[in-house]
């Protein structure tokens, strides 16, 4: 029986409610989530699921097309492509997660401060934002990475310095609206401090679009990391990383297509997974049609 005014299905316990909520998510979230989760599992279990050592060379089996021993073939050093792709997923997923995490935290804080305080604070922070976005994104990233030296850490620093702008804009716009929301007035009438109002009432309501954006941003960061590796500014050989593998396979594209093709497929699949998650969540939260 349901009490008046309470929709049916509120009786179940917390775990059953969670399960129902997960099942109620859009199909896109399920499919995208399955793809991302698969890659996550492969990355975590790489030492156990990868059939070969990703950097061990075996020149006697070099440039072999996909076969029973090497399901995705081998590269010019005889390294097993499947193993390299599985090990590479560790790096590429990491780039997706950390490449988003720092810009997300920095951008959200700046956007929240800017939108909530307004006035001079807002003006100064937004000019800083304008300066940052007035440089072409890729050029700025490459310039920072080139200055700091190649490697993952420089990549993350560069992204943190440049990538926060999108989050700051999204969160600031939300704050500008929500700080005037009726429920914020109600919270003020209950005597809550500004900090409590921001963290317990405005931020949870403002953060959803930033979370959705972070999923599509993860795709861009993975592609960017792969591009940097391709250009020689990211991961260094012989480490297995998808962008780097594509760069290495480029020379053999006519004779041994599989060397560049399968890492490319891996990037595309992970990117599609994150995109589907982003679209699905956007749909779920009613941010898009």
């Amino acid at each position, binding site marked *: 029986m349901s*009490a*008046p*005014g*309470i*929709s049916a299905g*509120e*009786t179940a316990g917390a775990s059953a409610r969670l399960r129902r909520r997960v099942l109620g998510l859009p199909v896109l979230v399920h499919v995208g989530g399955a793809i991302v989760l698969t890659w996550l599992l492969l990355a975590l279990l790489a030492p156990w699921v990868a059939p070969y050592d990703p950097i061990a060379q075996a020149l006697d089996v070099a440039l072999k097309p996909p076969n029973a021993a090497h399901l995705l073939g081998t590269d010019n050093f005889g390294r097993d492509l499947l193993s390299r792709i599985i090990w590479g997923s560790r790096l590429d997923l990491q780039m997706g997660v950390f490449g988003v995490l720092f810009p997300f935290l920095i951008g959200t804080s700046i956007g929240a401060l800017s939108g909530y305080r*307004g006035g001079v604070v807002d003006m100064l922070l937004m000019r800083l934002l304008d300066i940052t976005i007035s440089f072409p994104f890729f050029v700025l990233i490459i310039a920072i990475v080139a200055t700091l030296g190649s490697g993952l850490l420089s990549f993350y620093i560069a992204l943190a310095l440049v990538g926060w702008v999108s989050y700051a804009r999204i969160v600031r716009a939300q704050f500008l609206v929500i*700080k*005037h*929301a*009726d*429920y914020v*007035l*109600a*919270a*003020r*009438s*209950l*005597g*809550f*401090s500004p900090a*409590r109002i921001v963290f*317990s*009432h405005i931020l*949870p*309501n403002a953060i959803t679009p930033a979370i959705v954006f972070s999923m599509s941003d993860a795709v861009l960061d993975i592609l960017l990391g792969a591009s940097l590796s391709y250009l020689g500014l990211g991961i260094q050989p012989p480490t297995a990383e998808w962008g780097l593998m594509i760069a290495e396979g480029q020379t053999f594209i006519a004779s041994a297509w599989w060397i560049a093709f399968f890492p490319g497929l891996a990037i595309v699949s992970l990117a599609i997974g994150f995109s589907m998650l982003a679209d699905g969540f956007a749909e779920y939260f009613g941010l898009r049609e």
Partner: protein
Amino acid sequence: MALLDVRNLSVDFMTPAGALKAVDDVSFAVREGEVMGLVGESGSGKTVACRAMLHLLPPGRRRRVAGEAIFEGRNLMAMDDAELRAIHGRKIGMIFQNPSSHLDPLMTAGGQVAEPLIYHEGLTRKEARSRAIELLRQVGIPDPARAVDAYPHQLSGGMRQRVMIASAVACRPKLLVADEPTTALDVTVQTQILRLLLELRDKTGLAIVLITHDLAVIASTCDSVAVMYAGRIMERAPKPELVARPKHPYTMGLIRSQPSRAVPGRELPSIEGQLPAPGDLPSGCRFHPRCAFAAERCRRPPVDLEVAGPDHVTACLRWREIGQAA
């Protein structure tokens, strides 16, 4: 002594065109356990007056607030933010017209009732939760143990208003400012909510300032009434006195134009004309362009409140003549 004594409250909004007088020299008082009705048309300044006194006007707009609001012997108008936070929620609660938009959509009903208890009284989450369930029961929510975990969108309008009331009275305030608490609700639910407010008053001695445009609400709930028009108090009296012997043409017009007084087949009487814009107020008595009794001297200032009986004041210059005519 009055629990709340508002004296000469004025609120001007500053615009490029000049200062707009939203509230002009408004005074009223509320005793402990009293329900005081503040009645007036939309735009008459009743909400602005109450929000100004609680420092809850929308931030950002330039304005000038003058006057005093003495609550328990201390002037609210002179308090800084920290002092006010000790009053808001703890001593004075406020509920609003639209419960749907004044509840945080991402927080459960129980969470919103428990939050002031955790914040102001230092209860643990568990204690606050059981107190929240108890409060939800008190405000008449069926099956509060389940409703405590419901989100606002899962509740009906009347239930949301009850949740907001529970949240506002959670810390047992002395005064509740209710801004059109029933306007967004069904008529049947309106009565229930008003009855609930009176019940809370009887149980806890809560004083209530009830802002409304609906005289029927006043008639059924209030002990005393202040009638506002274009930012000013027109008449102030105990309710039975005001309803039986109104001493201002505006009050008389409001009483006559109540739908409950309609005679079948006859057009419902109304007050001709419209509320003047705050930037373009008539001189003298602000009601004179719409008043059937307006005379030459009504067009000129000053128009002060005159005592027309015990606890009864009116802003009408001609209340004696009108009283005889009516």
